[in-house]
Every structure is written in structure tokens, then in C-alpha cells.
């Protein structure tokens, strides 16, 4: 089984978010970058398929050379080969089209992406790739089993979950549940050494079209200070919620 995992290179979840150049660009100064958490759950599940079902894992990212440490980390975790499409990721449409072009000439049985990136939160790349390639697609995927050519998938739905099945090739939008937080792997020294020898191919962009642009960022307006209510005066809290906030 050939697996491709799509990797987004994102600011760590604890990052303070700031913007620069007149609030048009994310300020990456002092920011630690990580594998997008939803992608990392998928990569870790892919490792299971590699170890138990003999799968091979390629990882792909659309980005400039600054994303390579993140790709090296995926190799240190255990991916076999990394591909970087050398371009700024303009929007979800652009990224999906770039990756879809690559997939067209390199067949995969299973493509794993995250349900969304934690920076732009577009939640569209796996769905767009599925639409472009006309392959099966399930997002909010919280469990995945593959048996021969058939996938069994647990998908989170509003207020519950459902179990689906379909044929490969398949692309999923993964999330927590694919593996648990405690299953995530920290690269060991041997993995890090091996990663240096593994291929990281840089390929040119196919100059796909974009459809949207992020033009200006804002931070939320600082909120008013919290109104503290004494634990001995909970009637006041109810009064505030009813009369002032009007939410009861």
C-alpha cells in the first residue's frame, strides 16, 4: 500500500499570533513551527500501516525551504520520502491543485491529510484534492482500518459518529482519534540520523490557480476586564447573565 501524507507546516499551538507589514503577513519571528497536529495524527496512523501492513509512506508539503525542518521531522518519525513543492502556499485551492498534480503522476492507494490546518483553518485541501481527482473522500476521520482494497472509517458527525466503508483510493481528513495523543512519536536519535539519508525531493510548482487571497489580518479587540462575582452572591451572577449579557 502506497500512502501519501500531506503535511502543513504551522505555528505551534502555544504561539502568540502577531502580524507584520501593515497587518498583511503573519509575523513568524520567534515562532516555533510544528507538523500540523491533525496531520501528525494521520502520519502516526500511517506508521501503523507501515509497521503492520507493509505500507510505504511519502509526505508532501507545498512551501518554501523554511518548511524543510518540519519535513525532516516526518522522515525522522518514519516516513520514507519527502516531497516539497517549491512555492508559497497561496490558498487552499492552490495547495490542493499542486498536490493533485503530483498525485496524478504518482499513484497512491491512500492519501492522508488533516481535517484542517491550525493556522488558516480553511478545512478544504483534502476535499478539493478529492474533487479534482474524483476519488473517495471522508473528513473528520477518527478511526481508519484498511483491509485489502477496502477502508472502514469512523467519521465524527454532529452529536455522534458513523461508520463508513468504501474502496481505495481514498483521501481522508484526519483528526484526533486516528491515534491517541499518547501514541504520537518523538523522533529518536536513530530516526534523526536516518532522516538525513532519506530523500527530500524539491519539485517546481505547476503554477496552479488560486481563488482567494488573505489581504489583512486583525487581532480580536482586547476584552474588558472580567467581572468577578463573589461565590456567596450567585444571584448576582444569574442577574448579570439574564439582564446584562442576555444569555439566559
Amino acid at each position: 500500500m502506497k500512502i501519501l501524507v500531506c503535511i502543513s507546516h504551522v505555528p505551534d499551538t502555544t504561539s502568540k499570533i502577531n502580524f507584520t507589514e501593515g497587518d498583511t503577513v503573519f509575523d513568524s519571528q520567534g515562532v516555533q513551527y510544528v507538523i500540523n497536529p491533525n496531520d501528525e495524527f494521520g502520519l502516526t496512523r500511517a506508521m501503523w500501516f507501515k509497521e503492520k501492513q507493509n505500507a510505504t509512506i511519502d509526505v508532501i508539503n507545498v512551501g518554501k525551504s523554511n518548511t524543510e525542518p518540519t519535513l525532516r521531522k516526518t522522515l525522522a518519525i518514519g516516513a520514507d520520502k519527502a516531497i516539497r513543492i517549491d512555492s508559497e502556499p497561496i490558498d487552499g485551492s492552490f495547495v490542493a491543485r499542486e498536490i493533485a498534480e503530483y498525485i496524478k503522476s504518482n499513484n497512491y492507494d491512500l492519501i492522508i491529510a488533516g481535517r484542517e490546518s491550525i493556522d488558516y483553518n480553511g478545512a478544504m485541501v483534502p476535499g478539493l484534492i478529492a474533487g479534482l481527482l474524483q476519488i473517495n473522500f471522508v473528513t473528520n476521520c477518527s478511526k481508519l482500518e484498511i483491509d485489502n482494497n477496502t477502508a472502514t472509517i469512523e467519521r465524527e458527525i454532529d452529536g455522534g459518529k458513523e461508520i463508513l466503508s468504501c474502496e481505495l483510493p481514498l483521501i481522508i481528513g484526519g483528526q484526533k482519534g486516528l491515534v491517541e495523543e499518547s501514541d504520537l512519536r518523538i523522533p529518536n536519535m536513530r530516526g534523526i540520523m536516518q532522516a538525513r539519508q532519506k530523500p527530500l525531493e524539491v519539485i517546481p510548482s505547476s503554477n496552479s490557480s488560486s481563488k482567494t487571497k488573505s489581504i489583512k489580518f486583525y487581532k480580536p479587540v482586547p476584552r474588558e476586564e472580567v467581572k468577578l462575582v463573589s461565590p456567596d452572591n450567585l444571584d448576582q451572577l444569574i442577574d448579570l447573565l439574564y439582564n446584562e449579557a442576555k444569555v439566559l
Partner: protein
Amino acid sequence: MKLKSYKIIKMSVLAYVESFKGKVKKNAFEIVSYSSELAKKLDTDLVTLVLNVNDTSELNKYGASKILKVTNPNLDSFDAKLFANVIAQAAKTTNSNHIVLSSSLNTKYMAPLLSIELDAGYLSNVVELPSSLSPFTIKRTSFTNKAFCDSTIDSEVKIIGLSSNAFGLLENNTEGLVEDFNPSLIEKKITINSTEKVSGKISIADADIVVSGGRGLKGPENWNIIEELAETLGAATACSKPVSDMGWRPHSEHVGQTGKPVAANLYIAIGISGAIQHLAGINSSKIKVVINNDPEAPFFKAADYGVVGDAFDVVPRLTKKLKAFKA
């Protein structure tokens, strides 16, 4: 695909509203309120697409003047590709260049497929009407609610995914013209083996009020105080990441950056310190109340109202007082 006597010459705004067991879902009214204002701004008509809804009259109150009604038992259960194709047919038939969708999990699943069908630009998590029509510029949340972003959609056909509770309801009574629409249905490729819904409980996505518990509750056996407060308020229950990681509560209740986003009217956090990832996930909620015995908990900086006190003392008394208040 045939449309009986349905003639639209102008460009339209197409609102797709979801339904469940013959009724429109609650979020439909916000989608129609928003779409109706968008249509006014664009000086065009609004067409509202409903699948398997018996009575659509409630939608008229929010400005749904033309309703395109599809009735077909094969659309009773959701299939992303099939639904995207039906909506694409409706968009083409009604000459709609703007399509408005909700942020439910099903709709967010389907939206990118629709975007490919219509060669449309799609933006999710939109929170306002467009600030400019040319270029078409619209505000959305990004960085998991830590920021907002003005984005343009540069394609001719545009898909707008509206964040829950971002726009609210706007009454705008209108007569509703209902037309039947019979799209052709493509074959389903994905089989649903089983569906499991937590019955009798409100989901986090549908809830106006969410009551959430953290590590401060000390163990799963103490969750009764969270559940009783939630039940009193008609609220959904949620939890912080450590709580779901330790298995005290199911993953489906985990809210935060890697869990579920919450955009409720009222979010009550009990025994949650307020890590930056948690705050990011709940930031879109309107009013936040925090109950915590640690006055230094970062959550107090992000909350509207706070009670510094022991959850095991404060929460049961608050529940009791709310019961009396509701009675």
C-alpha cells in the same frame, strides 16, 4: 433534471439549509437571515434550497422568498459527494453566483467538493457580510480564532461558509414561493454501515449554552455536577483536552484547538485553567463565565464573568439557584 415553471433571469444568492427528519435544522434561520441580507447587498434574489422538508413556512420569517424544494428519499441520509452534486445542479439552474452554507460538520465536509463542481472559490468560518463587493472581500476567523482575516474571493462563483452564531437572526417576513426541483442523483460510492447519535443530549454544535469541565473536577466520578448544571440550562457538556486525554470524558466532548470549536452564546468553564489552545477553541463564544478556585488562572483574563471559588461548592448552589430562577 427538469425545473417546472421556475424562471430566474437575474443572478441569485443560493442558500442551502440542512434538514433532519423532515424539518429544517435550527441553523437554517441564521443562514437564511444572512443570505437575505447578502442578496439585498448584491441587489439580487435569494433562493433557498431545502432537501426533504415538509413545511418550509418558518423560513419565510427570515426572508426566504423563493424556496427550491427537493423531495427524494435517497437524500434522507447524507452523502457529501451526492449532496454537493445536487447543490451544484441547483446553483446552475438558478444561475447563482453566491452560495451560502453553514458550518456544520456535514456541510464543511461537502463544501470543497461543491467548490470543485462549480469551479468556485470557497471561504469557511466567515463572520460578516462582505465589506466590499469588488473585489469581493469578506472577514473570516483564522489562526483558530486567535485572529481575523479579510480575504477576497476572486472567482466568479463564490461559496461562503458562515460561522455558527456569527450573524444571528434577522426577521424579514416575506411570502414564500415554493417550487419543486428534481435533480438527477449520482451513485453513492461510500456506504454508511452504522450511525451512532448520543440520544437525548444536545450536541456541542447545536447548543446555545455549553458547560465545560476541566482537571479541577478531580475525576470522572464528579461529572454529575457538570451534567446537572447543563441539564438545568438545556446546555451541552464539554471538557478540556487533559480531561479527554485521561479518558475521563469522550473525545467528542474535547473542545479547543485540536478538539471541537465552540461558538455558543454562553460558555461556562469549570475547573479549566484556560491554556491558550483551549481559549482559541472557545473564543467565538459570546459570553464566557469561569468558575475556578485559582484567581491566577489565565481563563479569568479571557472571561466576561468569573467566580473565584471551589467548583464543588459553587456549582451545585448555582444549579439550585438556576432551577429556582427557571421555575
